[in-house]
């Protein structure tokens, strides 16, 4: 356990950053308080650099290469999310203090907000480091608990705060339910295999095959974790919570818990599937994931069609994207190359999704309109009509990110989706691929509606204007540029995604305490040797 500290430097840096923001954010000096965002940004940058340098292939990891990919990804998208979230809290309070109101530490929440922001990202990174069930549970909870508070804190004005409180309470209770379900699943998994270590669980399955208790445990664990990725049937909170929180926090919710949940699902299914020496998942788990993926894609896309609120639409679209990623999980590692590995596809898609969804939410967070004397965030498509003319930078970023979310050919989202298709086809899931393609077609309708509204329609007269926080506009533009840039230079990340998706396989042995493992490419040879030995 102790030697794992060497893999934890990015998390430690984020932790120190969070401690600093917590104390400095409550300074009576306004200039000091303004530094919290800077501290968070610097610690994220350092964490990204340290994450890139994480040594790969430790013996306790079930996906040995995932850390050097996932940690910088979380830190760098976290940096974008930080830009979107600048000014999410305390904007009115700070303005009042600058105008002469006395400083009251109980009314200022920037310290908590940025500290929780870093804690949640740290939790997502810890999920990638997880080597056993208890660690994974703690990491998932560390990802989620701060987000409940962030949702509540993000409300602005009296009405906004009422709505964010409601969203936070809903999110908290449903999150606790999800946590209860997967914790119960973890307990049964432990009961069925006698160990909490992923590697030992995989060895147990390799030696003895599945047993019913472990199967039930795994099903519960997957269903519980699907709350984090907002997969149907655990998706009910999504639209309400995204709508109730500010644009920046909604962007955060769309990426961070989803990444943590997706990484957890990859670790869990790797343990039972390919790591246990099988080509694919056991039938029970595969059919569960199949149903989850199909329902998630379809329900997400169909309900997104019916929304008039942009944030609700994006919430359902985020559900649909979770469904797309589950297709990659079902496809499995294939022969390890980028086009055939579903795991690499999921990891690369997380990168694409993180950038493009942050871009869309950043545009929404950059705009506001007056409603009853209070500035409120833009809500409906009517508000952002003609955005390309009134706010060209924001408008074109929106168009690029929306087309990317749709998977329009030469843009990033397309290159994210192709490996999902090819890996699922390679694994023989033709029906799933057809459903995925149909869903992409349904999704075109609501994404193109926004694109057309932003590009073609005349400017709206609802008095939409910039929020006056330049960081958010910068975040939107950076996302747009990144989407275009990654469309051209994405192959670099495809290569690292392929490396991150390397799986370990344990040959079926009667001695479950044997810790020998055979890397992917040697597996077939070893099996062949064994075969020869038997036949001679």
């Amino acid at each position: 356990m102790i030697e794992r500290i060497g893999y934890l430097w990015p998390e430690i840096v984020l932790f120190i950053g969070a401690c600093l923001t917590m104390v400095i954010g409550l300074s009576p000096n306004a200039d000091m308080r303004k530094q919290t965002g800077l501290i968070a940004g610097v610690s994220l940058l350092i964490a990204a650099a340290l994450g890139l340098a994480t040594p790969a292939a430790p013996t306790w990891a079930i996906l040995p290469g995932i850390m050097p990919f996932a940690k910088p990804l979380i830190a760098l998208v976290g940096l974008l999310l930080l830009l979107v979230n600048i000014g999410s809290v305390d904007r009115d309070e700070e303005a009042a203090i600058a105008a002469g109101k006395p400083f009251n530490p109980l009314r200022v929440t920037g310290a908590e907000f940025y500290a929780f922001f870093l804690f949640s990202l740290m939790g997502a990174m810890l999920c990638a480091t997880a080597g056993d069930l208890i660690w994974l549970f703690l990491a998932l909870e560390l990802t989620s608990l701060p987000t409940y508070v962030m949702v509540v804190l993000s409300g602005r004005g009296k009405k906004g705060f009422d709505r964010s409180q409601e969203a936070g309470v809903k999110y908290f209770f449903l999150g606790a339910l999800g946590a209860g379900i997967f914790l119960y699943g973890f307990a049964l998994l432990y009961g069925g295999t006698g160990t909490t270590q992923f590697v030992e669980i995989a060895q147990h399955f390799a030696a003895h095959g599945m047993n019913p208790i472990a199967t039930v445990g795994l099903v519960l664990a997957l269903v519980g974790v699907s709350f984090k990725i907002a997969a149907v049937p655990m998706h009910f909170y999504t639209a309400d919570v995204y709508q109730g929180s500010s644009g920046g926090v909604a962007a955060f919710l769309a990426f961070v818990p989803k990444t943590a949940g997706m990484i957890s699902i990859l670790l869990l299914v790797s343990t039972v599937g390919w790591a246990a020496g099988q080509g694919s998942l056991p039938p029970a788990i595969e059919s569960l994931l199949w149903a989850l993926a199909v329902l998630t894609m379809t329900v997400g896309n169909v309900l997104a069609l019916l929304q008039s609120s942009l944030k609700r639409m994006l919430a359902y679209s985020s559900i649909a994207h979770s469904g797309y990623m589950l297709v990659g999980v079902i496809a499995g590692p294939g022969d390890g190359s980028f086009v055939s590995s579903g795991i690499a596809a999921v990891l690369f898609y997380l990168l694409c999704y993180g950038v493009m969804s942050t871009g869309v939410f950043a545009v929404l967070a950059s705009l506001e309109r007056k409603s009853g004397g209070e500035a409120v965030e833009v809500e409906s498509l009517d508000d952002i009509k003609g955005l390309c003319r009134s706010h060209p930078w924001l408008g074109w970023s929106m168009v690029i990110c929306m087309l990317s979310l749709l998977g329009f050919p030469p843009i990033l989202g397309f290159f994210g989706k192709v490996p999902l298709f090819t890996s699922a086809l390679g694994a023989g899931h033709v029906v799933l691929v057809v459903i995925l393609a149909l869903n992409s077609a349904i999704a075109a309708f609501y994404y193109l509606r926004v694109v057309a509204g932003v590009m073609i329609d005349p400017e709206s007269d609802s008095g939409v204007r910039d929020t006056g926080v330049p960081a958010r506009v910068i975040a939107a533009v950076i996302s747009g540029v990144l989407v275009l840039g990654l469309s051209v230079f994405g192959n670099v990340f495809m290569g690292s995604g392929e490396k991150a998706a390397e799986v370990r396989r344990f040959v079926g042995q009667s001695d479950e305490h044997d810790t020998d493992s055979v890397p992917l490419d040697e597996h077939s040879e070893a099996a062949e040797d064994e075969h020869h030995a038997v036949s001679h």
Partner: protein
Amino acid sequence: MLATLATVDVKSYLPLGILIGMAVTFAVANVVMSKMIGPSRDGPSKGIAYESGMNPVGTARKRFNVRFYLIAMVFLLFDIEVIFLYPWATTFPNLEAGTSEGLVWLGRILFFLLTTIVAYLYGFRKGVFRFD
């Protein structure tokens, strides 16, 4: 399903089954037996709220100052700190003597204690310790 169930070591769950059985028996037996052999007398003084033998005063829906909860949470910090100090303290004497291991372990626990101090600093700045 049943065939595979047989491969699970059911015997290892036997103590758990006995424990659940005892818990259920104890609960049911208490209710049934007090119903059967207990004298059933009722009255106004039996109907009042139980306040550890005192006469109850005032309403139960009284509001407490939120600081009670803040203090309670600060106190929890001590609890957590002590819980983590115990395993550290029992492991420390078993470290190999003459190596740098002891220093490393000391550094780790000091880092942990430092984080608790950060929590107090946060509480202090938030005004938890200010009574007015």
